[in-house]
């Protein structure tokens, strides 16, 4: 079965500094890859997704992520964080399947981002 690891439970970054959140997955092939953000007490908002092609994907709110097949990683980055970026970030994978139907995503346990003034 596939799994997702977010090794950092908490990360503290100063406002204006760069950010990188790590995500590693375990699966025999390349899955669909996602990053979601969750503000306190809210649902999840999709930041970006990777299906195939260019390994650097751009998302909303100035975020980007890079897929590295050799490292089974999909790290999220932002060049300059804002106080409003403080939230919980989740990496998720979906297993490619042929035909129709549906399936759930497998999520990491999340990284809590704290922004220092």
């Amino acid at each position, binding site marked *: 079965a596939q799994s*997702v690891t977010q090794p950092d439970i908490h990360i503290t970054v100063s406002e204006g500094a760069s950010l990188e959140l790590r995500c590693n997955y375990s699966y025999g092939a390349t899955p*669909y890859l996602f990053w*979601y953000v969750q503000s306190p*007490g*809210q*649902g*999840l*908002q*999709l930041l970006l*997704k990777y*299906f195939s092609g260019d390994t650097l994907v751009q998302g909303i709110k100035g975020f980007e992520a890079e897929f590295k097949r050799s490292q089974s990683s999909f790290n999220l980055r932002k060049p300059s964080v804002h106080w409003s970026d403080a939230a919980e970030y*989740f990496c*998720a994978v*979906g297993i*490619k399947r042929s035909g*129709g*139907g*549906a*399936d*759930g*995503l497998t*999520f*990491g*346990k*999340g990284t809590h981002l704290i922004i220092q003034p």
Partner: protein
Amino acid sequence: SQTIHQWPATLVQPVGSPLSLECTVEGTSNPNLYWYRQAAGRGLQLLFYSVGIGQISSEVPQNLSASRPQDRQFILSSKKLLLSDSGFYLCARSSATRWETQYFGPGTRLLVL
């Protein structure tokens, strides 16, 4: 726009009581619908998904059940709540053709005492 509503937003229930959480979707037809649970300190766990009216797939054996009485309505139920049922319940939708791109509702916070 395609909107997901979840009702209620917050719920406090005693152990052993029944449960009914509702999810409704606007602006799309024949969506795939999902129930996830987020427990404290954990990621999201898929509970159920549905590809159409009356079609429910269960991922985790438990005392919860799901139903889809209408195309845009997905209900999560329990006959008797357990303490371990406490958590944040999220409904999600996707299109029938792109199941993997899932959009989430605002969630229902359930506390079982």
